[in-house]
């Protein structure tokens, strides 16, 4: 099979006319045809449309009208991103026939940059309940091991990047739904600051915590995607009107002098990771020390408090969104999602607002800690486990390392930090100050270039 290219590598070759967008598209389509019947990472493949877009890109570039690094690059969108004329289902029977009349903001920006939309990727139902076997499509699988969980909810986005079926994708993250799949699939995924990337046209999970963001093979590719999708959108009520830096220009490789905080109390008392994951984290921190950064402990409120605030708020908002359908046709929802939203209608307004007050307190504590450090680092999660139904109550009992940064709104990157004995990826989470995605991506890029982890692809496609 043809070599794997990152967006950055493909863009360099396309710009110099050493690689044709049509040729690149055919490479991606060949991988999809070879393995996606087993992976289920695409729920819609827009083959003919993509071919037309790739031919148009090729013609423009040959005529001297190169638009930039995304020109001619194949990507997909999580199937909660609305696409004009292309069915957008959220993997739910309730939206089985929904064809949007307008593109979401992200698609408008990616199309304007000359990207080639190759289709829609699998998600947990409405980006929240899963994995599920009783929704519109079967669950996505993990390309590193088809018996393993690719995590969610941006499952198809994560798997399709790892398998080289697309070079970039957009996902959403309300409690870890970009970082979880990035971790499980051994790729890079960025949850930007709340408000940095428009959510217009992205089907909601929980308005107050939803973030849209990119996934790709490397942090450098995320920077390229962020240069395209970041920016103010007056039609998104949460969008923030602040200058957007050039993210690729920030990738200097220089991390000397940065102070990295590690929430050791979370990792040693409240939610200790497995021994191999802790070893991988310590090794990653040593890489940063060797590059001139310093590491120190930081203290944050309990993980459980972040989880409580977010989950109460989310259940109330989810019920507001889905209550009308749930009251009329509860059988159309997958059991996993239904269990996670059905009690949301019983939350009293006072409890919702108290949870919002708690969010304020927790977000302030997070930002106060960032006065002491430039970045925080911790695992994104554990390596992928067997793909199987999860007990629905796990939503309420599980404590993870990602949700706290949705509550705080901070940018958080997950990237590969090695492999376990089964060959499944470990993942490092790098968290930054509000609106400082540039430092997060700079650190991620420096780490990837200092380690060999980007040289390995899943055996399924290697």
């Amino acid at each position: 099979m043809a070599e794997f290219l990152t967006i950055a590598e493909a863009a360099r070759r396309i710009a110099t006319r050493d690689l044709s967008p049509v040729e690149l598209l055919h490479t991606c389509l060949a991988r999809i045809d070879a393995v996606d019947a087993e992976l289920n990472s695409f729920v819609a493949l827009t083959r003919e449309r993509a071919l037309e877009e790739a031919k148009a890109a090729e013609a423009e570039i040959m005529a001297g009208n190169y638009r930039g690094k995304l020109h001619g690059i194949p990507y997909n969108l999580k199937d909660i991103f609305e696409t004009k004329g292309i069915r957008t289902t959220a993997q739910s029977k309730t939206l089985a026939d929904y064809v949007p009349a307008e593109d979401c903001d992200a698609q408008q920006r990616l199309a304007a940059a000359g990207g080639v939309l190759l289709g829609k990727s699998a998600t947990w139902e409405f980006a929240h309940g899963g994995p599920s076997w009783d929704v519109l499509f079967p669950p996505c699988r993990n390309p590193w091991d088809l018996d393993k969980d690719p995590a969610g909810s941006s499952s198809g986005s994560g798997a399709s990047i790892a398998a080289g079926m697309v070079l970039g994708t957009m996902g959403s993250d309300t409690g870890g739904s970009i970082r979880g799949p990035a971790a499980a699939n051994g790729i890079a995924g960025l949850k930007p600051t709340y408000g940095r990337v428009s959510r217009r046209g992205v089907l909601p999970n929980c308005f107050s915590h939803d973030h849209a963001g990119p996934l790709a093979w490397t942090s450098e590719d995320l920077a390229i995607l962020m240069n395209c999708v970041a920016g103010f959108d007056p039609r998104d009520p949460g969008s923030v009107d602040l200058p957007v830096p050039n993210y690729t220009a920030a990738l200097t490789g220089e991390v000397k002098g940065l102070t990295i905080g590690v929430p050791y109390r979370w990792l040693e008392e409240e939610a200790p990771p497995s021994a191999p994951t802790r070893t991988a984290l310590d090794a990653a921190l040593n890489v940063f020390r060797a590059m001139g950064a310093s590491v120190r402990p930081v203290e944050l409120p309990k993980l459980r408090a972040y989880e409580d605030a977010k989950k109460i708020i989310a259940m109330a908002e989810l019920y507001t969104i889905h209550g009308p359908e749930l009251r009329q046709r509860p059988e159309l929802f997958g059991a996993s999602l239904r269990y996670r939203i059905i009690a949301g209608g019983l939350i009293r307004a006072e409890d919702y607002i108290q949870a919002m007050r708690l969010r304020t307190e927790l977000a302030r504590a997070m930002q106060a800690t960032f006065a002491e450090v430039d970045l925080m680092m911790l695992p994104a999660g554990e390596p992928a486990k067997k793909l199987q139904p999860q007990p629905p109550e796990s939503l309420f009992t599980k404590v993870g390392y990602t949700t706290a940064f949705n509550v705080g709104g901070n940018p958080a990157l997950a990237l590969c930090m090695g492999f376990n004995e089964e060959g499944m990826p470990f993942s490092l989470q790098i968290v930054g100050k509000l609106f400082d995605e540039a430092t997060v991506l700079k650190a991620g890029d420096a780490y990837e270039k200092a380690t060999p982890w980007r040289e390995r692809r899943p055996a399924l496609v290697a």
Partner: protein
Amino acid sequence: MAETTEEELKVLAAKAGLSDLPAEYKAELLSAYRHLEVMIARICRDRPQADEPAHVFDAATFARKA
């Protein structure tokens, strides 16, 4: 905080428009609510009256649209 009684739950469910749910889904509702109320009970209520909640209302957004 005391566990919500079955009768209280029926009132809450009625207010949410869930009175007519088939029995299998009512069992889901009860099971999920038992977990939810544990989280609600953990939330601090002893806050100053003026303690403002997090929200996304931004007047500048609306001024810009106008």
